[in-house]
């Protein structure tokens, strides 16, 4: 038997090399990369109602998606210049670490482990959520503490699973978690009686009850919230400028609500006399220069998606199918937790 001649195999090797496209090594400057390709690559969920989902035409919308749009507007002056990469719960951090996405805006809970050990930075909170329970009324359960020895359906790969075991351990109550990888499978199992309770973030529970239950009146959302789930966009470590940009675009959206700047009136407000508003919208001092952005960065963001309140109402609030109350997500001066450091 003869071995193939080296000279004959080199074309194959050359072809392989051609397939390896040369790309610049990690420049560390996400902002430059985003500008260079004139596109923001945004990691989103594979479909969470109100936060990020694709419609029948493949257009993305939701609260998390609006964050991407606002950043694209501030950086590239065009909210449409975003490529959405749908990521599941397990792969989301890898995608961000490996540079596949510039930004992860995918209802991700801010926790110490994630912030400290995954090479990422959480930027700001865009939604304060908490974990709750859905139970059939016929169980006659009125509190999660009565779920002794219950089988509880839960989706894997999220903080939900851990919260569930932690909380019941702290209460000294034994439960049996029934873990599913897919959302559909988990709720189908619950509504077909596989479990006595279903647990997930409260933002989703009310809607699951009203839309997915065979008879919504047979089910009940329990009053307890067993966890704090501050959700927000995440960036890679090692690029402080980009970290600041993402953080401050979100702060600007919250501040815009506080000052009453809306998508509709942002141009008039620019011409107003309030120095704080002028500073935010770039008609007085140039706050954009400090971030490496243009002068009207915040005005562009608000013009693209509205202020935080408008984003909330359109995607998860009263103007959306979810119809969630503002609750913790109201502004700090209206009884909520949304508080942005001053843009000055």
């Amino acid at each position: 038997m003869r071995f193939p001649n080296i000279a004959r195999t080199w074309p194959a090797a050359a072809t392989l090399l051609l397939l390896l496209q040369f790309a610049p090594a990690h420049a560390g400057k996400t902002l430059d990369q985003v500008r260079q390709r004139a596109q923001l690559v945004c990691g989103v969920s594979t479909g969470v109602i109100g936060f990020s989902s694709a419609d029948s035409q493949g257009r993305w919308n939701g609260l998390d998606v609006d964050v991407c749009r606002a950043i694209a507007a501030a950086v590239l002056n065009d909210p449409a210049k975003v490529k959405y990469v749908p990521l599941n719960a397990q792969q989301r951090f890898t995608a961000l670490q490996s540079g596949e996405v510039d930004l992860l805006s995918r209802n991700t809970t801010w926790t110490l482990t994630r912030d400290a050990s995954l090479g990422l930075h959480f930027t700001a909170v865009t939604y304060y959520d908490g974990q709750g329970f859905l139970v059939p009324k016929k169980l006659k359960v009125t509190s999660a503490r009565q779920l002794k020895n219950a089988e509880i359906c839960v989706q894997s790969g999220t903080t939900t699973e851990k919260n569930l075991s932690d909380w019941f351990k702290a209460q000294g109550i034994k439960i049996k978690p029934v873990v599913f990888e897919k959302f559909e499978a988990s709720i189908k199992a619950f509504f077909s009686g596989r479990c006595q309770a279903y647990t997930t973030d409260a933002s989703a529970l009310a809607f699951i009850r009203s839309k997915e239950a065979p008879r919504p009146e047979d089910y009940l959302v329990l009053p307890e919230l067993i966890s704090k789930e501050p959700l927000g966009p995440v960036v890679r470590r090692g690029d402080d400028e980009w970290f600041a940009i993402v953080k401050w675009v979100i702060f600007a959206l919250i501040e815009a609500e506080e000052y009453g700047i809306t998508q509709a009136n942002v141009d008039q407000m620019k011409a107003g006399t309030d120095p704080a508003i002028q500073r935010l919208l770039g008609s007085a001092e140039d706050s954009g220069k400090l971030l490496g952005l243009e002068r009207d960065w915040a005005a562009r963001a608000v013009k693209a998606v509205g202020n935080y309140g408008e984003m909330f109402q359109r995607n998860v609030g009263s103007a959306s199918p979810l119809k969630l109350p503002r609750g913790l997500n109201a502004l700090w001066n209206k009884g909520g937790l949304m508080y942005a450091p001053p843009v000055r």
Partner: protein
Amino acid sequence: MNQLNATHAWLRRNLFSDAFSGTTTLLLLAGAAWWLPGLIDWMLLQAVFKPDAAACQAVNHAGACWGVVAEKYRVILFGRYPHAEQWRPLLATVLLLAVIAGSGLRLLNRRSLAAAWILALPAFFILMGGGRFGLTPVGSDLWGGLPLTLLLATTAMLMALPLAILVALGRQSGLPLLRGLCQLYVELVRGVPLISVLFLASFLFPIILPQGFTIDVLLRVQAGIVLFAAAYLSETIRGGLQAVPGGQHDAATALGLSRWQAMRWIILPQALRAVIPSMMNSAVSIFKDTSLVTVVSLYELTGSLSLALAGDAEWRSYYLEGYLFIGLIYWTGCYSMSRFSRTLEAGTGLLRPPVPSTA
């Protein structure tokens, strides 16, 4: 009258030949009578065919909501591909299916078939990827749905078969190093699930590559699937090689054929013919295994279905209908493959009719 007698005789022979077969027939009929009306009622009579969410909601799962397919078919079939450009994946899919059908039904002779494949594959990539002939470039990470499933499965089969033959021959080689390497490859790849091969290809590979080099994710995943399929296929083929009697080798040598000539003209044709059913088995399972690429953010048929439905408030509860729709697509593909396998076997004279009933 004669007709009636014939029918009667047929019924007697095939369905009521004895007490056992008669009971089975009756039980099956009763089962069908109990189950079919409800199924027909759900699938057709009470079903909603219009893309009208309110109508589906009103039926409340008493009937199927096929409207979900009517509403979402573009996302289901083409995934994340830009909406305005979706004629391109459509055309590419039709083209690829036509060439596959042309090969399967043997509408073309060998030479034009080869030409068709050589033209169709680049055309598929140009249509999907663009960047030429005035087509907007579309990155392969945005390819999805049916064309992606077809591409992954077809390429896997086309490339795994030659590789598998080489590996199978390598395992029979007289060179210990080559034999050992082939064995190592087969055992390594067979020893892990496809999903971990995909994870390696998608996440680990970019990390071990030298800084600055990136390989397209689709290419990495495709290579993973090819390597995986080839490992299984090579064992099938090795089985076929072993089934060829040693005398064939000796006879070929006696005729003055060299080792390779004997392999090419005497041994391999017999070996491959003998394992057509199990090769087809691998083909079918690879076709379905492509659904695993969802885990690495490539949204083929099953992935694009959940992309289409998971986040949609109005349509999310009708994923059963969605799964039935893509199930039909998978079934059509798999059934066509098994029909193709039967014609292949018939062509080689290996397909024996079932043993006739003695009654």
